[in-house]
């Protein structure tokens, strides 16, 4: 990467770790066999794919036959939610999720509503937490699935998944969690958590794009999503992305082996950024919980300014971050997550998400802070909202 670029958008995607890429390489050029072919070249690929499956299962504390490869985290979410909803349609048509899910989950439920399902969207508190009591109250006799994300992609809030999954299990309802942001940051173990379905995506933990996985607990039946060949034990058709799954397994293995150190590194950077910004810039709030958040996630709302302007100016300084602002997506609505935690439209528009990764340094944090102070000041001088505020408060 360009030395003058500070990449702080790791929740959007990560680079592929060089050692991970090295492991993938032979499977593009030399060992290119189809895992379903019976000759040696095919068998070689099969062996590699199954080895990757075992490694991922080991990380999760699952059995290898419970891991199914997909082409993305979005596909895993779609499969889990639609597959579980339709497989249990005779039992009922009521589904439960939260208001702050990623669109890969939220829009599945929107689709299912159009298909005649009933969906309850659990609210969250001002930190972004789902209240387990709300889940308890929402479950009805015809509820078949609960889907609640592990950690939020925008504000980093980590849900009490174990507690929520236990409630669903007690009522005999399937529990899915979108763990796309959690994997690689948290020691996720499926049996300890008690989840039935779990989605992940390799490119969030230094693996390649275009590959994900769905954990399906043994005995849980969900309908197929991709129809075709007999791959993935007849559950997910399509020739395996051999190099991709090898990359995912290598990246995940590395992540699990270095979780503590990685967490410490990210937390140090996040704390430094949060503390410095809070000290040096007035009228700013930290979104999400200070403690129970993804270690590399910092989501800040700067009052009186708009997020896209902030991002563009940061970009001019070589800082690549993200926002919950409408303008980046081309829609006029600010982030549904920021609105769900109670932010006004105005405040939600002025939000910035910085997500640190392995290569970021404290010097970079300081550079970001210096530029934020300057840019926020400049944009506020330009803002009619700030002008009104100053006038009203007589400052």
């Amino acid at each position, binding site marked *: 990467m360009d030395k003058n670029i500070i990449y702080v958008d790791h929740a959007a995607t990560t680079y592929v770790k060089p050692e991970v890429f090295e492991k993938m390489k032979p499977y593009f050029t030399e060992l290119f066999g189809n895992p379903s072919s019976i000759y040696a070249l095919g068998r070689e690929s099969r062996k590699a794919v199954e080895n990757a499956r075992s490694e991922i299962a080991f990380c999760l504390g699952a059995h290898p036959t419970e891991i199914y490869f997909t082409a993305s985290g979005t596909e895993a979410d779609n499969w889990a939610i639609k597959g579980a909803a339709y497989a249990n349609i005779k039992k009922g048509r009521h589904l439960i999720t939260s208001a702050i899910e990623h669109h890969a989950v939220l829009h599945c439920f929107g689709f299912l509503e159009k298909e005649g399902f009933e969906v309850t969207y659990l609210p969250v508190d001002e930190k972004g937490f789902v209240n387990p009591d709300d889940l308890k109250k929402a479950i009805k006799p015809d509820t078949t699935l609960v889907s609640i994300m592990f950690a939020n992609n925008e504000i980093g809030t980590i849900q009490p998944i174990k507690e929520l999954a236990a409630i669903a299990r007690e009522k005999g309802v399937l529990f899915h969690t979108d763990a796309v942001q959690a994997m690689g940051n948290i020691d996720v173990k499926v049996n300890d958590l008690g989840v039935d379905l779990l989605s992940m995506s390799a490119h969030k933990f230094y693996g390649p794009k275009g590959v994900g996985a769905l954990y399906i607990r043994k005995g849980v039946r969900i309908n197929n999503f991709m129809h075709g060949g007999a791959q993935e034990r007849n559950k997910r058709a399509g020739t395996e992305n051999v190099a991709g799954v090898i990359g995912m397994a290598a990246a995940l293995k590395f992540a699990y082996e270095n979780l503590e150190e990685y967490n410490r590194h990210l937390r140090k950077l996040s704390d430094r950024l949060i503390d410095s910004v809070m000290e040096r810039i007035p009228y700013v709030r930290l979104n999400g919980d200070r403690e129970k958040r993804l270690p590399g996630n910092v989501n800040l709302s700067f009052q*009186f*300014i*708009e997020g*896209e*302007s902030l991002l*563009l*100016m940061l970009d*001019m300084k070589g800082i690549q971050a993200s926002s919950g*602002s*409408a*303008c980046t997506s*081309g*829609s*006029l609505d*600010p982030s549904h997550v920021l609105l769900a935690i109670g932010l*006004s*439209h*105005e405040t939600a*528009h002025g939000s910035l998400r910085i997500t640190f990764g392995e290569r970021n340094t404290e010097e970079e944090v300081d550079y970001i802070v210096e530029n934020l102070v300057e840019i926020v000041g400049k944009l506020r*001088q*330009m*803002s*009619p*909202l*700030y*002008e009104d505020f100053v006038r009203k408060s007589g400052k």
Partner: protein
Amino acid sequence: MYSEKVMDHFMNPRNVGEIENADGVGQVGNAKCGDIMKMYLKIENDVIVDAKFKTFGCGAAVATSSIATELIKGKTVEEALKVTNKAVVEALDGLPPAKLHCSVLAEEAVAAAIADYRRRHGYDNENDHQCPGCCRRCETEPAE
């Protein structure tokens, strides 16, 4: 996604600020849409001798405000009212489709400031620009 001209006007906006004792001030847009523009005009003998703005909004909103002040400076009030959003877009070498509403907002801001000027000077204000916003939103929901 933005033209060089847009980026130039965003990074180095012309005429940012307020005019003390302005002859006309207009504010359009709302926080819900994420864009608010405030336009200040100094008008002498029906000619816009100075224009300044303050904008809360995205890069395109700042750039359209900036170019609009340049386009209307030195023009008569009547001429300034003929500066359309299209002219704003053209002067910026284009805008992404999702940002076209910002150019409308700039046109509205000028119109609102002129309407204020006319109101203060006792002109007929039957056809004054009262639109509070830029976006389709206000057609269905009241502005905040």
